[in-house]
């Protein structure tokens, strides 16, 4: 029988870079096929070939046994191929129904008919979303549902999900996996790209691992363990993923927060972090973890509570206060909050403490600055062509190191990491974990927010779990199981609908 999709010998290069070097990939109807690999392995490029965005230099794309020769994305859409992008491609000011039928809206619109058809589609996915609602008002999860409904309305036979759960809370991610199962039951072929291996192992029938622009292996899910897949991706095991352990012992208390709140979502959070300690903040997306650390840092004004640093009370009402108190925040969204992408690495690295590099007239001492940044780059093992290159020229992991360099240079002893490895490939993850551990070993107090449970378990000395703006409990290493963490993170008792532990 013909495969639903069959890619063979696909080659594509950009300039001198061979992004794809003869990739083979096949998808059956009613199959969930995971595509794994580090960032830059060529997953997205391959999917863009399938989606008609890139035209391959060699190789064939077959859909249902025919060779359609895509020239543009519209050709692929016409063949029933739908790509659900991570950054959703919806017109946010239009309604749900308008978005679903955007490409086929008649010149005279029957709103009743349009809304009825939209509702039928959304119902079939097991959701209740008002078709007349404006997309901008929907949660990210619901926007994703709309995107899927849009693809279904075009009779998509192949759906590509590129990191769909990266932006979703745990419950919503569960529901999305539910949708994918529904799609599979209907005979849709699903290609699933994700960095979350636990998820992949629950949903996929089949796994293809890519590395350096080639497909390494295609295996049945039942034949392999997570560890095997990681080894295929990077050539090292799960244990090695978290980097070498550095001996460290917690010292005196550095940061103490008492009853911090913003008068709204954050309702009185207290915690304490000691020197040399890595404390995790677990919980669902939307539990208020990011909001809480932004209060500590001064990015948002706190309404209640007190902050003590080395036992002394500090008033923190702006990021400037936070920096002066010795806090550094490595924010969730590196590109929008952490870096000035168009500016040189050098400028980004010194942004938080220009004082010592500036003379009395306000002139920047270039030589001193260069020396300082070169030193930072060495300590953080930054890989860059030149420190005068823009930050945008770096890979995700190295960009994250520039953000770290900024706080190194600022010299504080409290570091807050908000999703430190988001969008960073597996190899760079290990380096960042090692760095975080060595930072702690040097006596800094470290707070880590992560939605990847494995990351919290592998990295933290203890985990505080937040739910709806409050800390609901603490886990020590002996309690590090997904189940215990989720029980604290969700409205207990956890309902079977939202937690499917199998």
């Amino acid at each position, binding site marked *: 029988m013909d495969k639903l999709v069959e890619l063979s010998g696909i080659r594509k290069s950009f300039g001198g870079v061979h992004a794809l070097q003869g990739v083979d990939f096949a998808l059956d109807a009613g199959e969930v096929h995971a595509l794994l690999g580090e960032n830059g392995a060529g997953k997205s490029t391959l999917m863009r070939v399938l989606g008609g965005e890139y035209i391959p230099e060699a190789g064939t794309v077959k859909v249902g046994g025919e060779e359609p020769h895509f020239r543009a994305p519209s050709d692929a859409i016409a063949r029933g191929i739908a790509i659900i992008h991570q950054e959703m491609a919806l017109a946010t000011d239009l309604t749900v129904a308008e978005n679903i039928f955007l490409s086929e809206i008649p010149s005279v619109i029957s709103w009743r008919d349009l809304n009825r058809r939209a509702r039928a589609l959304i119902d079939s996915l097991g959701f209740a979303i008002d078709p007349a609602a404006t997309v901008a008002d929907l949660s990210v999860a619901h926007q994703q549902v709309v995107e899927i409904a849009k693809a279904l309305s075009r009779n998509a036979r192949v759906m590509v999900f590129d990191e769909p759960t990266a932006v979703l809370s745990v419950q919503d991610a569960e529901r999305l996996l539910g949708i994918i199962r529904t799609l599979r039951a209907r005979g849709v072929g699903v290609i699933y790209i994700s960095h979350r291996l636990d998820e992949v192992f629950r949903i996929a029938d089949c796994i293809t691992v890519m590395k350096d622009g080639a497909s390494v292996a295609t295996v049945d899910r039942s034949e392999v363990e997570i560890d095997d897949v990681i080894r295929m991706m990077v050539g090292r095991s799960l244990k090695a993923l978290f980097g070498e352990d550095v001996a460290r012992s917690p010292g005196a208390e550095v940061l103490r927060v008492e009853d911090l709140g913003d008068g709204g979502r954050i309702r009185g959070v207290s915690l304490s972090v000691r020197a040399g300690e890595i404390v995790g903040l677990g919980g669902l997306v939307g539990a208020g973890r990011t909001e809480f650390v932004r209060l500590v840092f001064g990015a948002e004004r706190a309404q209640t509570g007190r902050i003590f640093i080395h036992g002394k009370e500090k008033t923190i009402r702006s990021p400037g*206060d936070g920096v002066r108190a010795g806090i550094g925040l490595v924010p969730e969204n590196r590109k929008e909050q952490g870096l*000035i992408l168009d500016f040189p690495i050098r400028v980004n690295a010194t942004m938080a403490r220009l004082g010592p590099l500036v003379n009395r007239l306000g002139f920047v001492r270039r030589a001193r600055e260069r020396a300082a940044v070169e030193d930072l780059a060495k*300590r953080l093992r930054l890989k860059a062509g030149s420190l005068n290159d823009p930050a945008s020229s770096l890979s995700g992991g190295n960009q994250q190191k520039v953000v770290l360099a900024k706080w190194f240079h600022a010299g504080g002893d409290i570091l807050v990491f908000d999703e430190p490895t988001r969008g960073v490939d597996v190899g760079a993850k290990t380096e960042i974990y090692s760095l975080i551990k060595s930072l702690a070993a040097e006596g800094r107090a470290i707070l880590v927010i992560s939605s990847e449970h494995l990351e919290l378990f592998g990295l933290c000395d203890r985990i505080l779990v937040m739910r709806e703006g409050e800390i609901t409990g603490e886990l020590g290493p002996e309690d590090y199981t997904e189940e215990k963490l989720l029980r604290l993170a969700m409205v207990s008792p956890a309902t079977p609908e939202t937690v499917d532990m199998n």
Partner: protein
Amino acid sequence: MGTAMTEIAQTARPSLNVSQILQRYGTIAILVALVIVAASMSDVFLTERNVINVLRQISGTSLMAVGMLFVILTRGIDLSVGSVAALGSVLSAILIQKYGAGASIAVTLLGGAACGLVSGGLIAFLKLPPFVTTLAMMTVARGLALIVSAGQPIVMGDSGAAVTAFGAGSFAGVPYPVILMTVVFLIAGTVLMFTRYGRLVKAIGSNVEAVRLSGIPVAWYTMSVYVISGVLAAAAGIVSASRTGVGSANIGVGAELDAIAAVVIGGASLMGGRGGAFNTFIGVIVLGIIANMMNLARVPGYHQQVFMGVIIIGAMLLQYASNWLRR
């Protein structure tokens, strides 16, 4: 830590491609092309007298353009500069008659600073949109100028001798306003390239949130650029009064557009973060030459406006060509 992992190679700069060349030297290319065209159209153009004349004419606009550059670098806009210049013109002409040149200039510049402080404060601390805020300041400052002068031109007369001497005089053949303009550009260029202030102003325009989360008091910096713009606009008003000997509430109508055009022809991005003093200087000269060319070619005034717009678009297309080529 293993130094083997560190690769900060001091690699040689890769050779420039077409788009980079256009981006870096596009403004100068426009200038050179214009000079060649103008020189071939008119024998008068390259005479010393005409060149000095062009420079003198652009000296007022150029001060406003420098202020505008700082504002645009932070991703803002200042539509009030022409009106603030008018206010500066009448204020200086009135005050000089009672209090003398020094006090009059100082108070006038403070007045310009106050205008910038108000719009800048509203924009930086209350987060009002720059376009609308400075649009309001534009009518307020113009209205104030008309009130103060009662709508009449104010002749400075003998009491303004010191100021008019500045406007009409020259040093080694270079008019004082042109010297002032040069000095202001040099200072602006130095500040933008070598100081913390300049770096942060550009950084704020490029990504304000990242700068704020680095602990920089962003609002103060944002406000300050409007103050700079206000002071320089008031200075432009004084220069205008010094050249004519008359303070008028009607000068500088549409000058904000010339200032914006000069900054943009100079390759600055209205999205902030990109632009420099030297290129803005060239942008001002380009505008000056275009006007001068049309005068020399005896193009009637109304036609001049149309040509000016067309040429500005042409210059912009050349700038943007670099972006298209990059794709």
